[in-house]
């Protein structure tokens, strides 16, 4: 039985705290894979000063739970944590955290990448970049769609 944690929050998160929480009381995990996404300092040649992240409350949690559920059906996972921030974020701030634990590294690596690939194409979040020249909605990349289709 996989232990799922999905949270949407404005506040920052601590990788160390979540790492300890996901392993707490479990001795069977042989591998932990984590991914943290950050606000980058430029995109398509514009100087980005920050991001506003909008989401669809309710559907976001549902979509992320569905993605984690699919991952747990494909790989042997003990636990999975997904935390995604919303609201105003500054440069270099953390946006998203995925942690997956499994008996073996192969399942943990694959499941973590799968969750991120589907999060990027299925979960209802939208980024608006704040730049020196104004605010711009980020355009979805076809490469992300192509990557998700490889699973």
């Amino acid at each position, binding site marked *: 039985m996989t232990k799922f944690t999905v949270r949407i929050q404005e506040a920052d998160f601590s990788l160390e705290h979540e790492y300890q929480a996901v392993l707490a009381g479990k001795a069977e995990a042989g591998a932990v894979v984590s991914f943290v*996404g950050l606000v980058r300092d430029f995109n398509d040649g514009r100087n980005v000063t920050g991001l506003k992240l909008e989401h*669809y409350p309710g559907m976001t949690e*549902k979509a992320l739970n569905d993605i984690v559920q699919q991952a747990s059906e494909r790989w042997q996972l003990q636990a999975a944590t997904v935390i995604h921030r919303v609201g105003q974020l500054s440069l270099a701030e953390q946006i*998203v955290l995925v942690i997956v634990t499994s008996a073996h590294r192969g399942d943990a690596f694959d499941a973590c990448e799968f969750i991120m690939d589907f999060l*990027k194409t299925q979960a*209802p*979040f*939208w980024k608006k970049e704040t730049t020196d020249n104004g605010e711009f*909605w980020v355009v*979805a990349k076809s490469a992300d769609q192509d990557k998700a289709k490889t699973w």
Partner: protein
Amino acid sequence: MITVLFFAQLREQLQCDKLQLDDYPQTVAELRAMLGKKSPLWSELLVSDTALAAVNQTISHDQVSLNSGDEVAFFPPVTGG
């Protein structure tokens, strides 16, 4: 009655975040067409363009049927992560 929500740049372009419709058609495709009659902009963004649709918080294709109490959302391709 159904509730229709709009998100991100779609909400900004349409200057509308929510509609409540007592009269609604049978499918998502027909809802796009009905809303598209509001103006050329609505038609462009909901009929010609590729706004995604979700019915009751699940991404849905255009032939999904609508029922009273449904929450329908239209939004652009997602860009989280």
